[in-house]
């Protein structure tokens, strides 16, 4: 036998994939949770207790409004999916299952707080007042984003995994230099949020961002949506110690929160943002959730995951959960729910219509905005392009 023979695999070689021994829907004892899968308020134990105060001002109206956001965000998402299927969009990354993670985080932010999203944060965009049409336009290929990030304090989507984590950290370092941390003025103190997924935690930029943030004690909150899949790769391909536990090693606290419980994500994010704004440095939040749909409309998850897993998570649905709670508490009635559905329909109709009618940008526009100042090569090519196109008109 040649010494090349790979049949001689030593016993220390890494194990092959066994089906997960543990229940992957179980976030473990460290997970902050206020509403269980049936919508029952959970008596906060020692892990959740420190966050309970952040729900004190969440009155009935606030609960209904959180639910409204969950429903509308889900509707925006399903409309995006449908529009892609109808050929109106090139691609759509669905947030299905992650509504509570995103709405809780988004609603916890103050206006001046700045968000750096990946590409799936449609729910955070919604909370920051970005019209869903802007997101649709990007996935339609009309522009590369195009919304005014300074107006919404919501940065452009960042598709290259991990890049935005450093941008958020640097932005937070700017906030520090402006003195907008720890003044005690709630209108002035500012925090930054950086969003990524479980796969993103493997990337170099992510790890560098955590180092920089810790060293600078920057007012930034890293929000990792652990939806358990990075396209086809499960958590065990990305890390051995979960993201919330790794935060401590970088030098700041990490919290695992039930990402399908909007009360929990809201409370935990509020606490972390307050910590950041008051000058106590970064926090990492791991929202324990699940990607219910395909990675994007281009993906076929049946190739790599089993239906039973998806079913197990469906039973923990974030939107149903809050509805059950509201109904059980008598905070909403059928009429209220029907009105909300009607509102969602109206929203869906509008964005579908406006998306379908969104014109292609005039082609000469592709030469705009390459540089802030005039650039002769771009100008020359734009002119040559115009002349070339005019040639067709003459024919």
């Amino acid at each position, binding site marked *: 036998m040649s010494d090349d023979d790979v049949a001689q695999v030593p016993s220390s070689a890494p194990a092959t994939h066994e089906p997960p021994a543990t229940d992957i829907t179980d976030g473990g004892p460290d997970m902050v949770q206020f509403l269980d899968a049936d919508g029952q308020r959970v008596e906060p134990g020692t892990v959740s207790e420190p966050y309970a105060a952040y729900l004190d001002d969440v009155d009935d109206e606030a609960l209904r409004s959180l639910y409204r956001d969950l429903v509308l965000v889900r509707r925006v998402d399903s409309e995006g999916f449908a529009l892609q299927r109808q050929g109106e969009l*090139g691609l759509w990354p669905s947030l299905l299952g992650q509504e509570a993670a995103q709405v809780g985080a988004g609603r916890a932010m103050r206006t001046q707080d700045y968000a750096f999203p990946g590409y799936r944060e449609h729910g955070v965009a919604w909370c920051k007042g970005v019209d869903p049409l802007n997101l649709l336009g990007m996935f339609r290929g009309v522009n590369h984003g195009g919304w005014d990030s300074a107006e919404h304090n919501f940065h452009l989507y960042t598709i290259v995994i991990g890049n935005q984590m450093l941008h958020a950290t640097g932005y937070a370092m700017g906030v520090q230099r402006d003195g907008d941390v720890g003044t005690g003025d709630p209108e002035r103190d500012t925090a930054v949020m950086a969003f990524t997924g479980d796969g993103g935690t493997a990337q170099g930029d992510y790890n560098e961002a955590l180092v920089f943030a810790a060293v600078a004690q920057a007012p930034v909150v890293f929000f990792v949506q652990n939806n358990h899949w990075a396209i086809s*790769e499960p958590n065990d391909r990305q890390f051995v110690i979960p993201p919330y536990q790794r935060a401590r090693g970088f030098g700041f606290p990490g919290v695992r929160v039930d990402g399908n419980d909007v009360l929990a994500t809201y409370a935990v994010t509020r606490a972390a943002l307050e910590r950041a704004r008051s000058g106590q440095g970064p926090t990492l939040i791991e929202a324990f959730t699940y990607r219910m749909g395909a990675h994007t409309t281009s993906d076929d998850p049946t190739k790599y995951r089993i239906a039973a897993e998806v079913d197990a998570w469906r039973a923990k649905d974030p939107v149903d959960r809050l509805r059950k709670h509201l109904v059980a508490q008598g905070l909403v009635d059928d009429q209220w729910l029907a009105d909300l559905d009607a509102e969602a329909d109206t929203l869906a109709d509008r964005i579908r219509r406006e998306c379908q009618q969104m014109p292609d*940008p005039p082609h000469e526009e*592709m030469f705009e905005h390459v540089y802030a100042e005039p650039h002769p090569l771009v100008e020359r090519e734009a002119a040559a392009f115009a002349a070339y196109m005019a040639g067709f008109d003459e024919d």
Partner: protein
Amino acid sequence: MTTQKMTIAKALNAGMRKAMEDDPKVVLMGEDVGKLGGVFRVTEHLQKDFGEHRVVDTPLAESGILGTAVGMALRGYRPVVEIQFDGFVYPAFDQIVSQVAKMHYRSLGKIRLPLVIRIPYGGGIGAVEHHSESNEAYFAHTAGLRVVTCATPEDAYWMMQQAVASDDPVVFYEPKRRYHERGFIELGEAAPYELHEAVVRREGTDVTLLTYGPMVKVSLAAAQAAELEDGPDVEVVDLRSLSPLDLDVITASVAKTGRCVVVNEAQTFLGMSSELAALVQQECFYHLEAPVLRVGGYNIPYPPSRHEEHFLPDLDRVLHAVDAALAY
């Protein structure tokens, strides 16, 4: 000898399979290359057939993929790594340019890095940004790397095996919008061409199109359109290798036709087409009836996909340049 019809994606897969069968040191690494078989299914079934040791779903980190591939190569393996899309190679740029490209030189030839870096590249698929780039010039510019690209299933099959067999690092660009184009492959015989050989895909007498990857098809279509219109007789050279360039085939063609147009998707400024234009004018100066012209992407970032039909060279733009070359 058996002839099979298959797509470029399947041919790449078959080429890797053959390389893995022939050499147990060949290991595939990348994001989603295992169970999923890659987002384009180019590595489909290989993990099932060769196991998780030889087809590795890596953590999501391109610098990590390249850096560990270097280490595996130092330990005697022949890693074939997949970068999921052209626009995601940059986190690995440092490893490729600073380490992969230079290690043989630095070690006075004692260290060989037989890596293949597979990069699906180019546009035309209606994708969001970072999924449509043609960044081959960065790597062709870097001494120490070999850079090749295929345009046919036959080349996909054979060039992949040749790239794996090379003792130098090879950046292997795969024309993603052509993945599903079909063609015939003779299996079992020796490769029809050397890895770094350019091939005349269509003979002509009036003008040479130098092209590669996804633009070979467009160039051939332009040549045919010219013929149908009783226009110029266009020769099409598929470069296949971007570093090194096959100067013999290139200069022989241009010396014959006296005119040359370079066609690629990449932005022209300081791109492959710049180098080709410079070389052709230097080597074929006395044969040239016209300046070497270039058809490529405009010098802007890859635009939103609704612009790409105008950003990417098409048949009309190629013919326009052919006419311009003939008009001199």
